[in-house]
Structures are given as structure tokens and as C-alpha cells.
């Protein structure tokens, strides 16, 4: 009745098929289409176009905007997640659901919504324009705002999930040591949900990087100012699908590179 197995490192137990099989199917499902792109991509023909300054601009702009958007999401989203998970407000359920709004909203409509609020004639935008002469549409800042708007829910919801899973008694312990709730949050809560936080950040950043609809609707499309990679890809699709595929692969490779390098660093955060 005791069956012996090959020994394998620390987590020394065999992976059950019932888990391994679907896991691999899932992996294939996500990765094979990528393979499809790689195979069908007309590489040779457009290396020149690939290394054109325009593409470089778009790449840089994408990375910068996505990262800025992620930063904003972290600053605003993590506290929001905490409020939803720990703070005791009325109607949390509804709030939590409201947070998912930008998820469900078709991005283009999301962009329209942003225009309605922050546009030149927008509910708030008109005052921004009149009082401070700030006008977000058609600016790089606009891109960041649009991406943040679309990407934030991913951060908020996954961080909130992590927070809900964390054991609040450690926060109690911190309190008895005289730590303010803010200090506790920084020094105890956040570290203890590091993995969830990382996950949320990755989702947020990746989503921002791939954002298209809201960006073009709210910030428009002007090379060097608001043309991120996805926009470039869409325009390429109109004329030369091959080029589009290659461009998106470039974006992909880049993001994977960034994630691999960063995550392995983050992940080493104990928890």
C-alpha cells in the first residue's frame, strides 16, 4: 500500500495527472497561437520597417506610458484594494463591483467616457482647461490616463483578493507593537501579500501595455506623442497584416523580457 517514487528536490511529490494534464492543455492554449504568429510572420521582408525610428518611438512610448500608468495604479489602487478588503464601509459589495466597470466597458466606450469627463467640454475637463489650461486629450499624459483607467481594476481586484486572504492577526500584533495603521500596512500587510501584489502589478502593466481602444479614443493617435505600439499595430493591420503581426511580436518579446527579468527579482521577496 506504500508506493515508492523517484525523489525530487524540496516539494518532493509527483504532480498528479488530473492537475498536470489540464495545466499543460491550458499552457498550450495560451502559447500555441503565439507559435502560429511566429510561424506565419513574414520576417525577412520587413526588418527594415521593423527598425524604423517610428517603431522605436512607439516602443519607448508604450513602455514609458504603461509603466507610468502602472505607477499611478499602484498609488491609487493598492489603498483602494485595502479599503475594500479591510475598511468597513457601507455597500462594499457594490463598490467592489463598480471597480470592475472599466473591465466590462468596451474600451472605446471607456475612452468616450473619459472624454465626457476629462475632455475639453468634459464635466471636469472644461474646468481643467479653463482654470489651469490643462487639456489631456491628444497628449502623452492622456495616454497614461487612459491606460491607467483601463488597467487599474486588474490591480485593485487581485490585490484585494490577496488582502482578503492574508491573516489579519499579524496586523493586530503590529498594532500592539505601537505601529500605526499606515506603518502596519507598509511594513506588515504589503510584504505579507507580496505575491498577490506582484501578480496584480503584472496584470496591470501588461494590460496597460496592450491597451488600444480607450487610448486612441481619448488620446488620439499622433506619432511620437500618443502612438503606442498597439496603435501602430492596428494601423499596420489596415495595410499590411504581416507587418502588424511582426510589430505585435516585437511588443510581446519586449514585455516578456521585462517580466522575466523583473519578476524573478520581485518573487525573491519572501512571504
Amino acid at each position: 500500500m506504500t508506493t515508492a517514487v523517484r525523489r525530487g528536490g524540496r516539494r518532493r511529490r509527483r504532480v498528479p495527472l488530473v492537475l498536470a494534464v489540464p495545466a499543460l492543455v491550458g499552457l498550450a492554449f495560451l502559447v500555441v497561437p503565439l507559435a502560429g504568429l511566429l510561424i506565419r510572420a513574414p520576417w525577412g521582408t520587413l526588418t527594415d520597417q521593423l527598425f524604423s525610428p517610428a517603431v522605436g518611438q512607439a516602443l519607448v512610448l508604450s513602455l514609458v506610458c504603461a509603466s507610468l500608468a502602472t505607477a499611478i495604479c499602484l498609488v491609487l489602487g493598492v489603498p483602494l484594494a485595502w479599503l475594500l478588503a479591510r475598511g468597513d464601509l457601507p455597500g462594499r459589495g457594490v463598490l467592489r463591483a463598480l471597480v470592475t466597470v472599466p473591465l466590462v466597458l468596451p474600451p472605446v466606450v471607456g475612452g468616450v467616457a473619459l472624454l465626457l469627463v476629462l475632455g475639453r467640454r468634459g464635466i471636469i475637463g472644461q474646468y481643467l482647461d479653463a482654470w489651469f489650461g490643462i487639456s489631456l486629450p491628444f497628449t502623452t499624459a492622456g495616454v497614461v490616463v487612459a491606460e491607467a483607467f483601463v488597467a487599474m481594476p486588474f490591480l485593485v481586484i487581485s490585490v484585494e483578493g490577496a488582502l482578503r486572504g492574508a491573516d489579519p492577526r499579524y496586523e493586530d500584533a503590529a498594532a500592539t507593537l505601537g505601529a500605526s495603521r499606515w506603518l502596519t500596512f507598509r511594513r506588515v500587510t504589503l510584504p505579507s501579500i507580496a505575491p498577490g501584489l506582484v501578480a496584480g502589478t503584472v496584470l496591470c502593466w501588461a494590460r496597460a501595455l496592450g491597451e488600444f481602444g480607450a487610448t486612441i479614443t481619448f488620446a488620439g493617435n499622433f506619432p511620437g506623442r500618443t502612438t503606442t505600439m498597439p496603435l501602430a499595430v492596428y494601423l499596420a493591420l489596415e495595410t499590411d497584416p504581416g507587418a502588424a503581426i511582426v510589430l505585435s511580436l516585437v511588443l510581446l518579446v519586449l514585455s516578456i523580457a521585462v517580466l522575466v527579468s523583473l519578476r524573478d527579482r520581485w518573487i525573491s521577496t519572501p512571504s
Partner: protein
Amino acid sequence: MTLHAELTIARDSGFQLELDLRIEPGQVLALLGPNGAGKTTALRALAGLLPISAGLVRLDEHIWDRPPEVFVPAEHRPIGVVFQDYLLFNHLTALDNVAFGLRARGADRTTARATARRWLDQVGLTDHAGTRPRALSGGQAQRVALARALATDPALLLLDEPLAALDASTRIHIRADLAHHLADYPGHTLLVTHDPLDAMVLADHLVIIEDGAVVQTGPPAQIARQPRTDYVAHLVGLNLYRGTADGTTVRLRDGGTLTIAEPGTGPVHVAFPPSAVSLHPENPAGSPRNSWPVTITTIEQHAHTIRVRLDGTPSVLADITPATLAELRLTPGTRLWATVKATETTAYPA
């Protein structure tokens, strides 16, 4: 600077706690009680982790908790807590765990670390300073928790089983150190423990609760001599009986009679140590005024004595020497006569 608490707490599990405490500066009050008696609950209430349903918690004139209006949250109470399950921060090293409270209370990193290191030395973990809690043994973890609580030297120390996970020898040392520390420590200390020895050694005053209510309070020595409930009797290792005295004869509530030294009347407790019981193959003539037939139920080998549980009216615990055990060839089921000198019993009003 008296700590004064009148706790009334109702848990959603239906558990009810009713407890009044008063701890003078420098005093160590030990809270004893069986599992689920409400010790941790009381401790959490004093720590500000559990608002009381009614009553009052105040340190001198500072009111910490008085429903409905006042409640001072934990981080604003000058307290130090050792939790029953330690709750060390898993992402911090032992050193940083101890330093946490100091940092939180405004010490700069280096000072905090230095102080923390001193405390780790005190609990004998100098060379585990850099270890993460998950890589500590149970006892090591508990000692870190103890150091963490003491490091901020708070006005109120709340210790929940601070020595439970320590081995015999470490325990003796840590207990002695703790005793020293507490001796010249101006603050108030509430010690929750299961170990009567810890209580006896460390505390000036015992409060014993059962099922959320106080059953006995007093200085250790007195409680050791005159337990009022079976739990307390167990705690201090005495045979305890309730009965009605009529002169020197006590008719026991659960059957049987005992003869005591000083005559009394009315309901009394009668107590005597297991060592006062001697066993004989048949009814001995003469001196010892109490003797009755008993049957051995269990025999426990302790370090230097053997403890025998005897069934009879009344049932009784007896400590005997290995010699006696051998000579009388005792085994469970053996029928014997138990005798207790009247002078060895203590009787006190119930």
C-alpha cells in the same frame, strides 16, 4: 498608576467573560484557568484587540476602553504582548521582528537593531538574529516573541503562555531572567499560564477563572494551601474534598468521612498532599485517624516518586516510593487500605 479592568465580553460563539482585574505598578498578576476559560480573550481585551461589550479598562486616569464612547486602539496603548501562537512576522528576520516595536515607537534603525540584539542575547538567540521565523524551532520562535514584547518596555505587559514551548532547562533560565526583569520592572504584568510553577515563581497574585468567571484569587502560597475547586487542587497537586464539618469529623459531599485536626462546623474544604497518603495491605491498627479501603486504578511513574490513583470513598491520589511499589507489588486493581494523619490535613471554610 493602577491598571483597572472590569471586563464583560460576549463572543459570538456564545462564550461570556466576566472578569475584574486590578494590577498595581510592578505587580505581576497571573491569570490561570482551564482551556477555553477566557484567558486569551481577557488578554486581547486589555491589548485593545477586542473591544469589551461593557465595563471599563483604564490605566490610572487614562481610560482605554469604556463602551460606548471611549476606545483607545492597540497602537496607542503602551503595551507589549506575547501571543499564544507568537505571530512573528514571517518576512522579517528574528532581529527585525524584535526591532519592529522600537522602530514603530520612533527609534532609528541602528538604535533599534542594537537594542533588539541585546534582547536576543538575553533569550539566548544571538546566533539566530538573521533567521526567518519559518526556520526557527518552536521554542526559538517563542523566545523571539518574548524578546519582541519586552524590547519596548511597555507600561503593561501581556504574556500569553510565554514559556509553554520552552524546554525544561531553557525554561528555568528564561523564567529566572524574566523573574529578575519583572522584579525591577515598574510596569504592570498580566501573565497567562498553565504551569503552576511559572505562576508561583513569577506572580505576586493569582486570579483563577473557569468558564469565563473568577473562581479564586489570592497570593500563590495561600491558593497552593487552600484550593477551592478541583481544577485548582489539580493545579497545586492536592487532594481536595468538600464536606460538612461537625467537630473534627467531616462528612464529605461525595461520600465518606474524614477526621481533621482542628474542630470546625458547617461546610468546609479539606485538602492534603498525595505524599500524606500511606498505603497498607490491610487495615492498620492505631495512630492515623483516617483509614479506608481503596483500589488502585492507575500507576504513574514520575521522576522520583510514583503517583497512584486510588478508587474508594473518597477517591484519592497517593505518592509512594519505588521501594513501596516493589515491596507491596502494586498493580492496577490491587485492593489496599489508605491512611491519612489528621494532622496532615488542612480544613478551611468553603
